[in-house]
């Protein structure tokens, strides 16, 4: 059995923090979390999970009661992204567990480290359709990295520890332990110890040296090299190595959406994000490159567009810790299986020379000049959302964290904010779950209380989880939620404009509440923006307010997100306006 690295046993601390003695399975569960140095838990109480909550009664760990279990899962997910440590969410059986599902699926798509602990009906009732019984293992099987039905009180603590280790090691992801009530109530005595991985799980560390040399030679010989940095770079804490490698060899860097922050966007080598709503210059470079060093990305279709036209001239060097990602979507000419940080170090050492790519860099610069990110903002029209995003970026620290819902606002938040550090961009990428914003804001702030946290939400997304505002108020979290309010589920409306003859079926929200007033009802501060003149003052006041604030920003309801590559399209043929679609 292998230990989780950077995890030193801290038995003395744990003994101080935990209950005096371990008496039940639930005590062992709690002790396992303490041994894993868990500080915060997000959850909702309920019958089947009550023994675990009872065991938490004396624990020093901070449990945050969320308004809805979906909120608990998203908060844990954001906590995991920001802190790098698995976020823990808890729910009771049946409806509690099913409410977690969206958040677990989200973590699974984005490989975020999350541990879900669900209550279950007592073992003797399992399979009988007992009150609040759901086959949680069956339901969450396809959306977890691993899930386990705990069936033994004596070992349940170790099971939870191993779920924690699995969430964090190798390709990160959500794990779940289903905890029948009789198991958590049953007798346990032993300290479960620190988290250990199951024997069959041995993620690779470094890539094969020969493959590394060949890949390095390929990169060094390239005329038009790019680096494509995915979320895996951030997960592996490899941003520093990436920065060194790129600057040393002067290779332009493109990121995927989860890779935002892996490389500073104000760096001259940065081309920012490619894909459906990526920058024109990133999409040109990713199309024309002859050598792509792709690190920690799964080549999602929002990035690649149609595979036929994705980097068709490029030899692909693909670094990933999960062998199953190699050639899943895009064939890798040079697979390097291993941890991104370790492999980047290997590559750095193996590079025989830097690629001779002056012309290519000039070409990239030319694309940057040709396709600047910009928007028209006539003064007599309603406020443009991009303007609001930039105003908040200007007014916050460089390491401020941005969280989002899903939709147009999410795209503006990634296009018009300049990300400079890893773990400052917290969003629902692969699943695209509306409602992610508010709970993620809570999780992010709990993970990084000293940082500015700004959420850009859509009116539709906000309405899906705005009840979590009550939690932000109760926990007195100093966060700012900016609703880019277009009285529509705008991204859908945009597609209707473009592909459905402007038939706005079920995408307009004529009955939208006053979000500033709603915020006040929750005990938060509410602000409202209607004109450009108000922007600066509201930004200042909302950020200055010491507690949760909600800015209801009434933006141009007709504004759409560009550039755009229609789904399955050709990245190099991105449209700059509807006419070009």
């Amino acid at each position, binding site marked *: 059995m292998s230990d989780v690295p950077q995890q030193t046993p801290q038995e003395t601390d744990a003994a101080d923090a935990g209950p005096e003695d371990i008496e039940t399975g639930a005590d062992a569960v709690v002790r396992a979390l303490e041994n894993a140095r868990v500080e915060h838990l997000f959850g909702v109480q309920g019958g089947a999970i009550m023994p675990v909550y009872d065991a938490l009664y004396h624990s020093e760990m901070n449990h945050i009661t969320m308004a809805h279990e979906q909120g608990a899962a998203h908060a844990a997910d954001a906590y995991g992204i920001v802190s790098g440590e698995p976020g823990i969410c808890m729910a009771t059986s049946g409806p509690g567990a099913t409410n977690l599902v969206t958040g677990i699926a989200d973590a699974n798509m984005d490989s975020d480290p999350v541990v879900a602990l669900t209550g279950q009906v007592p073992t003797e009732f399992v399979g009988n359709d007992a009150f609040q019984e759901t086959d949680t293992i069956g339901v969450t099987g396809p959306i977890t990295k691993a899930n386990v039905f705990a069936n033994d009180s004596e070992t349940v603590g170790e099971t939870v520890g191993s779920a924690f280790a699995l969430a964090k090691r190798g390709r990160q992801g959500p794990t779940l332990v289903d905890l029948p009530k009789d198991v958590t109530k049953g007798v346990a005595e032993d300290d479960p110890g620190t988290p250990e991985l199951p024997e*069959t799980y041995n993620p690779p560390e470094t890539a094969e040296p020969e493959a590394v040399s060949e890949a390095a030679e390929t990169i060094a010989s390239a005329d038009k090299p790019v680096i494509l940095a995915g979320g895996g770079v951030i997960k592996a804490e490899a941003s520093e190595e990436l920065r060194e490698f790129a600057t040393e060899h002067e290779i332009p860097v493109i990121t995927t959406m989860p890779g935002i922050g892996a490389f500073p966007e104000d760096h001259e080598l940065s081309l920012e994000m490619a894909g459906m709503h990526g920058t024109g210059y990133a999409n040109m470079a990713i199309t024309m490159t002859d050598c792509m060093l792709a690190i920690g990305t799964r080549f999602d279709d929002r990035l690649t567009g149609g*595979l036929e036209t994705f980097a068709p001239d490029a030899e692909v060097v693909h670094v990933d810790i999960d062998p199953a990602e190699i050639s899943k979507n895009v064939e890798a000419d040079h697979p390097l299986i291993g941890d991104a940080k370790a492999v980047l170090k290997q590559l750095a050492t193996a590079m025989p020379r830097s690629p001779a790519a002056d012309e290519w860099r000039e070409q990239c610069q030319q694309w940057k000049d040709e*396709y600047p990110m910009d928007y*028209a903002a006539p003064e007599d029209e309603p406020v443009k959302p991009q303007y609001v995003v930039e105003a908040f970026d200007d007014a916050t620290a460089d390491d401020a964290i941005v969280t989002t819902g899903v939709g147009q606002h999410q795209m503006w938040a990634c296009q018009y904010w300049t990300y400079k550090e890893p773990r400052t961009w917290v969003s629902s990428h692969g699943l695209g779950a509306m409602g992610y914003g508010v709970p993620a804001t809570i999780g992010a702030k709990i993970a990084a209380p000293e940082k500015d946290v700004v959420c850009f939400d859509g009116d539709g997304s906000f309405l899906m989880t705005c009840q979590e505002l009550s939690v932000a108020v109760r926990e007195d979290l100093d966060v700012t939620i900016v609703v880019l309010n277009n009285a529509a589920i705008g991204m859908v409306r945009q597609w209707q404009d473009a592909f459905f003859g402007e038939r706005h079926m079920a995408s307009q929200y004529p009955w939208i509440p006053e979000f500033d007033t709603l915020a006040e009802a929750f005990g938060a501060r509410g602000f409202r923006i209607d004109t450009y003149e108000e922007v600066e003052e509201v930004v200042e006041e909302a950020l200055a307010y010491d507690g949760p604030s909600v800015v209801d920003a009434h933006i141009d309801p007709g504004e759409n997100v560009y550039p755009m590559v229609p789904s399955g399209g050709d990245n190099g043929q991105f449209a700059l306006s509807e006419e070009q679609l």
Partner: protein
Amino acid sequence: MSRNQDTHRNGLEGPAPEERQRPVGRRNSQGIRIDPEVEAEHEPRRTIISAYVADEPGTLARVSGLFHRRQFNIESLTVGPTQNDGYSRITLVVEEPDPGIDQVKKQLNKVLPVVHVRELDNEPVARELVILKVDGDEPDKVQAITEMYDGETLDAGPRTITVQITGDEGKIDDAIDAYAQFGIREIARTGQAALARGEEETARVDETHT
């Protein structure tokens, strides 16, 4: 003051799609770089994959769920215990293009109780069992066919005859064709079980498992 206040805003600009540089190459729909003139796709092929797995509740469900979810074309799946307590062998027959077969192996490997996965090439030893029930009007002819295929009669009555045939897939298909003339009432096939030939290992099993 916000930096965007004095900027003159033009909206997005730049050359239109048709004015842009174009790459010369192309990939196929499987993401493989190809000669654009030729447009080759990988053709599916049939193969046998063997997985050695720890017996844990839900392992089979996870494996079959995986095939369904990832849309792998699976033809048969058999499972049974091995010589080692607590471990089973799953034999899968799949029909996929090479990249798909590769994915099948890698995805199987990610299922935690799966200890080892291998594709059995080089003519593995593979057998299937079929039980079939035919109309009993011509018992002598049925018996002749059964003998021809080294089968065994399991049950014979005035109206039906039930036989068993074991063999490789081709033999079973042929046998079923041959019985068709009598009127087949029901068929139950097991799907293939297979081991690698000779000294070759079917799955990497360390000393704790041998």
